């Protein structure tokens, strides 16, 4: 079992993006003595030493940081090198144009994006997300592009019809149109007070109460 202070220090060093110096830790933890913080740190270092786990607490660049042991680098790299890559914004944009506008030529994609798309297009072709559908029957016979089966698989789409239309995405911003019912007479027999001069000027000032109504 670690001491409370050791656990606190551990949580702070763990979440910090860079190494945390003793000075900084003392500044942050004013309720603890500097001496206690230092000895709690020593306890932590020792406990990681004894444990001989995958990482340890080391002093680097004048601060404390958790670092994996060099022994395990070969294992760590296995994960890092094969992990899934994220789409770059331009790749995603180009892919979106091809998906929604297919069959489409490179010139059309570039006209929409306003930039050269050769590189992105090549990457998308290499990743088998986009395929060449054929050649357009216009002067120059440019290649026409469309999305592939892999594209559907990656986005979990049954078919191209399942692609959400731009209209549907825009519809999220629209509220269903109700008829204006200002004149709806809810209880015509009761007089509605004048709208101005209310005894409570702001709705935020209406206080909540612990309602217990018999």
């Amino acid at each position: 079992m670690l001491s409370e202070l050791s656990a606190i220090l551990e949580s702070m060093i763990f979440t910090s993006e860079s190494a945390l110096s003793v000075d900084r830790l003392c500044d942050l933890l004013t309720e603890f003595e500097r001496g206690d913080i230092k000895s709690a740190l020593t306890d932590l270092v020792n406990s990681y030493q004894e444990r001989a786990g995958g990482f340890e607490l080391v002093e680097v660049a004048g601060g404390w940081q958790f670092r994996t042991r060099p022994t395990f680098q070969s294992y760590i790299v296995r994960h890092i090198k094969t992990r899934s890559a994220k789409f770059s914004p331009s790749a995603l944009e180009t892919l979106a144009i091809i998906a929604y506008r297919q069959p489409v030529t490179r010139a059309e994609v570039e006209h929409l994006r306003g930039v050269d798309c050769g590189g992105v297009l090549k990457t998308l072709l290499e990743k088998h997300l986009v395929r060449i559908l054929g050649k357009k029957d216009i002067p120059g016979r440019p290649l026409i592009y469309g999305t592939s089966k892999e594209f559907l698989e990656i986005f979990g789409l049954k078919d191209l019809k399942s692609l959400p239309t731009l209209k549907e995405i825009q519809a999220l911003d629209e509220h269903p149109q109700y008829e204006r019912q200002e004149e709806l007479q809810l209880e015509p027999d009761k007089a509605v007070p004048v709208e101005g001069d209310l005894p409570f000027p702001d709705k935020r000032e209406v206080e909540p109460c612990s309602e217990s109504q018999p």
Partner: protein
Amino acid sequence: MADAVPHHQQDENLPLLDGIHQQYSVHLDSFDGPMDLLLHLIKKNELDIYDISIAVITRQYLDFIKLMKELNLEVAGDFLVMAATLLQIKSRQLLPLDDQEDPEAEEADPRAELIRRLLEYQQYKEAGQLIGARALLGREVFARGAREEFVAVAQQQEGPLEVSLFELADAFRGLLARIPVESFHDVAPGDSLNIADCINEILSLLQEQDTIQFDQLVSDELTRERIVVTFLALLELCKLKLIRIFQGEQHGSIWFVSAVATELAEEQSTYAL
């Protein structure tokens, strides 16, 4: 007498509004819709949700909407739809059951559908509160903050991912922003670099080593001109398909390799997304 008129008006309104105020003193903002308001009224009146008095609920619901209007709050259409539903149920309760109608097809209790919706809504509302009370990542609990520094290097050795032209340009922009303005003026116009020289320089460097880091190319003389020329040279090399550009991680260092050397490996590798 001039200011007595509004006072008088206020006094007239006070009793009624006070009554409403006391009955419904709640945060008007806090209702997430008509269902939420109905649940509140049911709890407030200590009604059995399975046997709610439509007359009581409808009356208080309509009073509440009126209050919202009096406070100049925009009453959302959803609230009015529910008002109509309540009034419809109320009127159906008043009507005698028509024996001619198929009793199987019609719900015996006109309230049944509303009660069902209320119960289900209450379920999800409570579930939402339970979920929201959990220790959330980034709010109560946190993951590791630091990144392992050797990872970028290891990445480059083992199997780099492709980087987009955009990220390359962004790295270039970031580099330009870092250069002090003075160094821009320091460049003597006489010894300006040309792109062809720079291309040859990069290609010869690539013969010596497998990979070059972008920063490495410009580290010797960090001037605006040098960076611009190097960048243009790299774009040209890219266009000629003589080099390939990689980035280990997002916002990580950008690396170049000779395209000729990687062609074989490239064909064998599969692209993971």
